[in-house]
Every structure is written in structure tokens, then in C-alpha cells.
């Protein structure tokens, strides 16, 4: 008899600002599941909130895939944000604090990077952006 493993990946749409709240809640649940401490939980939820809002504001909406990740000796949580928006023409500039093309404070991308243990950004102008962040226990 095999027991079903708990689901490790959930994909959430980001279409309205309420969806950003749902992403935060899902990331929190997964971070708890991965055994992250309170400060690490708070950091990765905050980073996810910034990136979900970016996907909504600049990417015209998109989705977030949230998963618990497991390596031999450690566990963590990983979130991948995808949008089909205009993309980021100058990534270095976009990562700089204070840079904003919208109504934010310009802390979103750089701040999310600082709050994550892993950060990968892939963007093709005219096609969209994908940002992956992770935080390990």
C-alpha cells in the first residue's frame, strides 16, 4: 500500500491585488511545511509579495508556482513568478534600489533579491519575465 505524498507544488494566478494576498498565504503555508523559522518565513513571504505585485503591476498579471524543495540535507521553499508582460530591458538597472518605472518605491526587485537565498531573473523584452526565488531552512 502506498501513501500519497503531500502535494509539493501549487500554482496560483496573479490577476488582481487579492491574488497577491493569496500568494503570500500559500508561501507562508509552504514555508511552514518546509520547517523554516519565523524570520526566514517572514523574509521569503515579503520577497514573494514584492514579486507578485511586480508581476501584476508591470507584467500585466501572471502566475506563481510555490513548492517545497528537498535536497539530501536541507529543505526549503521555492517560488517561480512568470508573466507575459513587456519584460525588463535593463536588468541591472531594475535591480538597483530606487529604480522604478511605476508607482512603487523601487525596492521590489533588489529587496526581493536580498531577502532570498537564491534569486534568478530571466527576462526577454516583448515576451515576459520569470523570477525564481528560494529560501532554505
Amino acid at each position, binding site marked *: 500500500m502506498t501513501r500519497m505524498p503531500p502535494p509539493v507544488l501549487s500554482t496560483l494566478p496573479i490577476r488582481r491585488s487579492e491574488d497577491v494576498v493569496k500568494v503570500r498565504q500559500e508561501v507562508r503555508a509552504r514555508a511552514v511545511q518546509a520547517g523554516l523559522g519565523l524570520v526566514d518565513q*517572514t523574509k521569503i513571504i515579503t520577497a514573494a*509579495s514584492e514579486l507578485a505585485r511586480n508581476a501584476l503591476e508591470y507584467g500585466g498579471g501572471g502566475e506563481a508556482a510555490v513548492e517545497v524543495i528537498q535536497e539530501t540535507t536541507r529543505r526549503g521553499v521555492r517560488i517561480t513568478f512568470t508573466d507575459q508582460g513587456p519584460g525588463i530591458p535593463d536588468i541591472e538597472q531594475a535591480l538597483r534600489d530606487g529604480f522604478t518605472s511605476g508607482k512603487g518605491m523601487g525596492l521590489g526587485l533588489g529587496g526581493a533579491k536580498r531577502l532570498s537565498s537564491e534569486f534568478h531573473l530571466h527576462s526577454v523584452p516583448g515576451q515576459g519575465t520569470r523570477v525564481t526565488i528560494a529560501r532554505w531552512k
Partner: protein
Amino acid sequence: MERIPILKIGPALLVTIQVDMHDELALTLEEDLTNRIVATGAKGVLIDISGLEIVDSFIGRMLANIASVSRMLDAETVVVGMRPAVAITLVELGLSLPGVRTALNAERGMALIAARLADLAQDDAPDADDEDAAPGA
């Protein structure tokens, strides 16, 4: 429509944020508070964020805006109850909330507002103040 309640306690307004706010709800609170300051002539605004698991750049900006706007309307804002993990995360995010007064808890925050009111009362009555200061003169 969903709203964060604003209570009037003496010369101060009290807001306790207990839900994970989406962005529009935060903007509504900012506007409601501004209107209530004018309508009530409140001299202080106490915002209790002890229920908030995260403060991202959007909520941080809302708090900074409320502090600035209330100052222009002759009211002082004190943010109380920030969780330690939230403080650590905000600093790493790059948001140190300049211009926002904080206190550890609601009691200390109320004391700050009461102290300001006492100062204002003194400024309004300089003659009475002089007599108090030198009763034997």
C-alpha cells in the same frame, strides 16, 4: 465594501490592522484615516500592526504616507506593535520608514501622543505656564 475600522479614543484615532491587507484596502485605509483626522480634529493616530505577519514595500509606503499626511493635518502618527521578524525584514528590504514614529506597544504609543497633547496645551497657555513655573515670584 471591506474596510479597516477606525476608532476614536479621546483626542486620538486608533487603527488595529488584523487582516492581511490587499493593496486597495491599504489605500482605502489611508484615505479614510485622512478624512477622519479632519472630521474629528484628532491630534494623534495610533496604528497597531502587531497582527501583521509581513510589511512589504507597499504597506511600508502606506504607513509613511499616513505619517506625512497626518503631520500636515496637525496630527502625529505612531506605529506600534511591529513584530521583531518584520523589523528585521524591513531593514533588509531597504525600508527603514523615515519619518514614522514607532513605539513597542499601544500603551507606549498612547503615552507619546499624550505627551504631545500636553506640550500643545502648554504652548496654548503661556501665561498659566509662567505662573506654574514660578509660583513664588
